């Protein structure tokens, strides 16, 4: 009878400990999916004036992605150390050029990159190596990466920003996006930009 009681107590303790462990795990952040809001992250305002102008961010030390002056923001989560991101870089640059050369899209779709686990120096190395024309931000201590659900790289998230600064993710996918033209068409279609649905 004593053994039976001890076994039951042990089992109950194991269940409670396991449930507590699972509860702690539930605090881990999930990767935002279509229809979700972005995690609330504060990104340092760039020192570079051209980048501030591109983002439409005026003043302050930090900004949130929905404050970017755009109807759509494409967020690339990358790393200088990731060979896939290195191979993808020229195509992402081409996406930027396609947008900037299109009078109907210029100013409406903006790109930013978050360098996961990268120091500012490492992000600058990536920027110079691949002549990246859009703003890149260092995420040295993996803070942003954790909030985005610890995705692998490269990871692309498309977010639609409404005039009231509410926003919804409409694209969330691991890996390269393939051709820039096709991806841009997809972004326009999924975000509703083509219908004048976005800001």
């Amino acid at each position, binding site marked *: 009878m004593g053994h039976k009681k001890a*076994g039951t107590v*042990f089992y109950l303790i194991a269940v409670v400990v*396991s449930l507590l462990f699972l509860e702690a795990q539930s605090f881990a952040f999930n990767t935002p999916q279509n229809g979700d809001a972005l995690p609330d992250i504060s990104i340092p305002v760039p020192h570079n004036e051209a980048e501030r102008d591109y983002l439409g961010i005026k003043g302050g030390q930090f900004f949130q992605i929905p404050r970017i002056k755009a109807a759509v923001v494409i967020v690339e989560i990358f*790393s*200088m150390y990731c060979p*896939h991101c290195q191979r993808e870089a020229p195509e992402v640059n081409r996406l930027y050029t396609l947008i900037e050369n299109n009078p109907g899209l210029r100013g409406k779709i903006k790109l930013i990159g978050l360098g996961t686990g990268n120091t500012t120096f*490492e992000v600058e190395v990536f920027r110079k190596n691949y002549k990246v024309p859009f703003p890149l931000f260092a995420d040295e201590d993996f803070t942003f990466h954790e909030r985005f659900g610890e995705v692998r790289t*490269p990871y692309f998230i498309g977010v639609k920003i409404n005039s009231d600064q509410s926003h919804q993710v409409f694209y969330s996918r691991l890996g390269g996006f393939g051709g820039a033209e096709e991806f841009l068409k997809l972004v326009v279609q999924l975000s509703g930009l083509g219908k004048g649905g976005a800001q």
Partner: protein
Amino acid sequence: MRRSGIGMGILLALTVVLMSTTVLARSAAFKDNIYNPGQLKPVDSDLRVRVGEPAPDFTLPAITGERITLSRFRGRKNVVLSFVPAAWTPVCSDQWPGYNIVKDLFDARDAVLLGITVDNIPTLFAWTNQMGELWFPVLSDFWPHGAVADTYGVLRSDGTAERAIFIIDKDGIIRSILVGDINKRPPLDYLIKELDKLGDS
């Protein structure tokens, strides 16, 4: 009954642990081929060389088929030895691809990079192929197993190497040593700053 309670408890705990496995491989380039060894003891060896001492010479086979001798760079190039623990593991798989895009930074500092692991040549060949074409030699310290790593004092008790960087000047003298936490990638900033110091002297 007690046994069955303990058994069920262990089973439940194992299930929870397996459910909680996190993704450590950060790059999608290696797909699902990265083995996750979990969190390891940060450093598990004792250095056998010091800054200011001559770097022990060695000859190791490279994945290209040639044999590389450290002393051949004496009087010509600064040398960076980058020991990484093992092929197909999370942090290692992300370290050298970063070095692969900064050849210009090494060239500007008159430095060569030698990547070393204790894996055999076929394993290193397959692994580094996933990184693209590397500009620096990748050397195998497989046999006698980890002999060079052991000479430098960076062979761990499980037979892997530490995540370590040795910077050796053109006179063959060790000018900087970093044996970092095996679970973390050393920032590129460190390596470049240490190389810059060679130019200052």
